[in-house]
């Protein structure tokens, strides 16, 4: 194997959230404070955020603060776009649009 194939080794760079999570939450977790949190909750939670991570890293690459824009996190934010798409589709199909009904 050439050294080039180790290019992905980037010490000092901000670690991938997934790699941090698997260590900080899933493993190596030994010292307990006197405030206890339910581990099961955390495990469920990691499953949930696993779904978010991929989009998070992609967004960050594009310089987007994903938590500001992710419709999954902010129910309201993505809604407008979906509604707009729905409205256009309905219009195209000659149906009364959702926004018409609201008025």
């Amino acid at each position, binding site marked *: 194997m050439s050294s080039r*194939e180790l290019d992905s080794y980037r010490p000092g760079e901000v670690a991938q959230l*997934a790699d941090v999570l698997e260590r900080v939450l899933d493993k190596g977790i030994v*010292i307990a*404070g006197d*405030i206890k949190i339910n581990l099961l909750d955390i495990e469920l939670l990691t499953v949930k955020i696993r779904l978010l991570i991929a989009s998070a890293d992609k967004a960050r690459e594009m310089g987007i603060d994903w938590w500001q824009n992710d419709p999954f*996190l902010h129910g309201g934010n993505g809604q407008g776009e979906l509604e707009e798409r729905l409205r256009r589709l309905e219009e195209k199909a000659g149906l009364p649009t959702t926004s018409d009904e609201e008025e």
Partner: protein
Amino acid sequence: MAAMPVPESDAGWYLYGVVAAGAAPPDTAAVDPRHAVVALAEERVAGLASRVSLAEFDEATLPERLADAAWLEEKIRAHEQVLEAALAAAAVVPCRFCTVYRDEHELRRFLADRADVLELTLERLEGRVELGVKAFAPGAAPSEAAEAESGRAYLETRRREKQAREELSRSRAAIAHDLHRRLLAAADGGVLLDLQSRELSGRTADMVFNGSYLVADRARFEQAVADAAPDGLELELTGPWPPYNFVPEELGRP
């Protein structure tokens, strides 16, 4: 500048990890950026800790906070950065995320009670870091069964594909086993972590290996990784990490 009075609600202490007494606390932002990370010495060890609001970090509110991905990422990053900065200076015993004490007394009692095992652990970890090694293989080819011309051909294709998948997974298991064995020979310890899904790894290739190793001689370990790299697999090294996976469990027992 006069120190700001500490609000009464900020009586909690967040513990990041433990270092040898006398080490300077890292100059990085705390999980609560209003407070600095300090080193609270007790006997020969010191806890790297910072004040937190119990309104934010108490048992009752934590589950809700933890469900907030933005909060969680910010705090996890702060936790990790404090430990990485500490690790750059000296050995550190990392704590789990959200190790919180209700007051300074409780935190100091933990340090005093466990001083011996903490000190031994620090000695064992001195000059060592955790390095992650992941291996990725190109994904399996899409099924051709749908293109079969007859029912029998369809079933035959499905059967062959299933067999190929089973062989592939057997050979991947053998490769992983061999890789782990060879990397262990260049490390002081190693563990296999769960394989990350594609969503998690952000890759189109399948993760077929995910190990983490306690390493004293990084050049030797990196050479071992290079030598052990199986054909057709892409390897990725991560770290150095605080040795999360190499802290004795007895530290957590009451």
